[in-house]
């Protein structure tokens, strides 16, 4: 068996460096990663990267920062398994492998000129934040912006300072709900679906962008359809475990689609008849 070094392998990693680590909640940390020469990742909002730590492995992680942030990118990671535990042990200055970005992100050109309704459940805010911040940084290119955020408890809320900023802005409408409140919570209590009926929107020119745990989609989409938002104007980002990111390994296959190449962002119109998609 001959073994030769490849110069153009899709499995080759770029060497990234951890710029900063911020504890967000008990379980989540926000990592800022820089590529060599502070070169931009050149991602679209909603895309993901394969992060790797040799000796531990590789995992697909959503990019949480907007492409308008140059020089570094951010990802927010919940500690759930072997890889993410190792990731949580990293500190500023450590090296980390990066492949990507991969997949189709949110179609920002298509969204321009339209009203936007963001619906984020739990960790769904992590990839959605890349688009929300992109829209805020290019605010005049978009119509009305409505953000709905749902978390399990007030302590689970991510990006608290940014959320506060969204709340304060006059050009963004913001609503938040928790499944279980605590004594200090002044906002809404209930599932994220409970916020949708209260939103005033023009269905013809509104794109709804929905990201959350798999269980959330059916219910949120049901509410959006009640609001008369056409299914092609509902965008979802689907959760799958992309192992290779190249449309080959099969783990993220949804019928004829490979989530890592054809998604993770899909219009609901495209997948509504695809069983096993949501």
């Amino acid at each position, binding site marked *: 068996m001959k073994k030769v070094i490849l110069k153009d392998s899709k499995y080759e990693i770029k060497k990234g460096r951890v710029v900063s680590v911020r504890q967000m909640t008990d379980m989540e940390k926000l990592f800022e990663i820089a590529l060599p020469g502070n070169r931009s990742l050149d991602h679209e909002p909603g895309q993901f990267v394969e992060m790797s730590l040799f000796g*531990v*492995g590789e995992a697909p992680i959503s990019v949480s920062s907007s492409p308008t942030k140059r020089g570094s990118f951010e990802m927010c990671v919940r500690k759930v398994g072997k890889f993410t535990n190792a990731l949580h042990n990293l500190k500023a200055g450590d090296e980390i492998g990066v492949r990507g970005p991969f997949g189709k992100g949110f179609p920002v050109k298509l969204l321009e000129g339209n009203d936007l309704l963001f619906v984020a459940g739990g960790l769904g805010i992590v990839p959605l934040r890349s688009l929300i911040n992109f829209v805020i940084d290019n605010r005049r290119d978009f119509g009305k912006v409505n953000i709905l955020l749902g978390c399990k408890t007030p302590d689970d809320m991510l990006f608290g300072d940014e959320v506060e900023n969204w709340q304060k802005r006059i050009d963004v409408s913001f609503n938040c709900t928790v499944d279980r409140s605590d004594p200090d919570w002044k906002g809404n209590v209930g599932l994220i679906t409970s916020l949708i009926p209260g939103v005033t929107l023009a269905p013809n020119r509104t794109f709804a962008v929905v990201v959350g745990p798999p269980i959330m989609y059916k219910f949120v989409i049901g509410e959006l359809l009640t609001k008369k938002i056409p299914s092609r104007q509902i965008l979802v980002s689907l959760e799958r475990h992309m192992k*290779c990111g190249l449309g080959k390994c099969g783990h993220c296959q949804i*019928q004829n689609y490979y989530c890592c190449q054809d998604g993770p962002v899909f219009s609901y119109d495209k997948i509504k008849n695809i069983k096993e998609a949501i």
Partner: protein
Amino acid sequence: MQYAIINKDKVDDFITRLAVQEKVYAPVARGYDNYSFEEVTSGKNVVSGRYIPTILPPKKYFMPQRETLLEYNLTEGQNMNAVVEYEKMAIFGVHTCDLAGIQAMNMVFSEKPADINYLIRKNKITIIGLECIEYCDQNASCTLVHNHLPNGGYDMFFTDIGDSFFVHVATQAGEEIIEKTKVFYDADAPHMRLLEQVRERKKKIFHDEVPIEYHELPELFQKSFDSKVWDNLDSRCIACGNCTAVCPTCYCFDVKEEPDLSLVQGKRYRIWDSCQSEPFAKVSGGESFRKMQGARQRHRYFRKFKYQFDKYSRPHCTGCGRCTRACMAKINLKETLNALIAEHA
């Protein structure tokens, strides 16, 4: 020399001469009607007649069960080299079903983003096909998927015409083998007639094994997503993954790490994986998109007859019958197809 003849008593000699020049892999009997592609240095044990498809298809040479993708060294940070492992080789005795399997794999791995590891390895492999002139056993369904006759995908192709093999030399690599081994001579008109007779006889032997037309297969599956047939498989399948391991067109893999004892160096490799295992379609929140075994079997069947057919315009079932032979729960591909057809008749 596009068409050549080799006398049957020269086949051993041919393989021995070929093995002097490069590694040769060929089907070898392993007992109990099991066969296996193995490295051979002479033609002594090589099966050049009828054989039941080998336990593993030649896929194992194109996409090794375990393949190193990266080698890393952590002495000074996350340093790595992407690597490809390959071997120049000739595979003798590849049936038409397995040629179709290789063609299907070629399509998948050539599609952008192309898999360089696979493509480099593929270019180092010379393929010598061998025609089946009768059925291997009752599990084959090669006629259904149009793979009982050669459809290309080889450098040379052997057909038994009695005392000799008729050889179609399809590529330069095949031509070079002819020149180097010096055991072939030119085919003439009587040989051509013998070949035609073999093909005529095949028409009488090979028949549509399942009562459905090739082009109707995706439509059948289109209607069958909620079929009771999958419930039946749900109660039978034990998720051993044999069907996917032996399938010539299953290529799903996992990516894993192996540090050496120093923990400083190691490898990242890919290894065959199976959509029949429960964690395969699991996501980080713990949800599995194909929790039930019936859904996983359905996914396997849909990958053979619907999803890949839609995408690549050819079924990714080659009709080799391996999944049926290897199934510990006696799930039978032809029975499954017949049950689906019966349901929609």
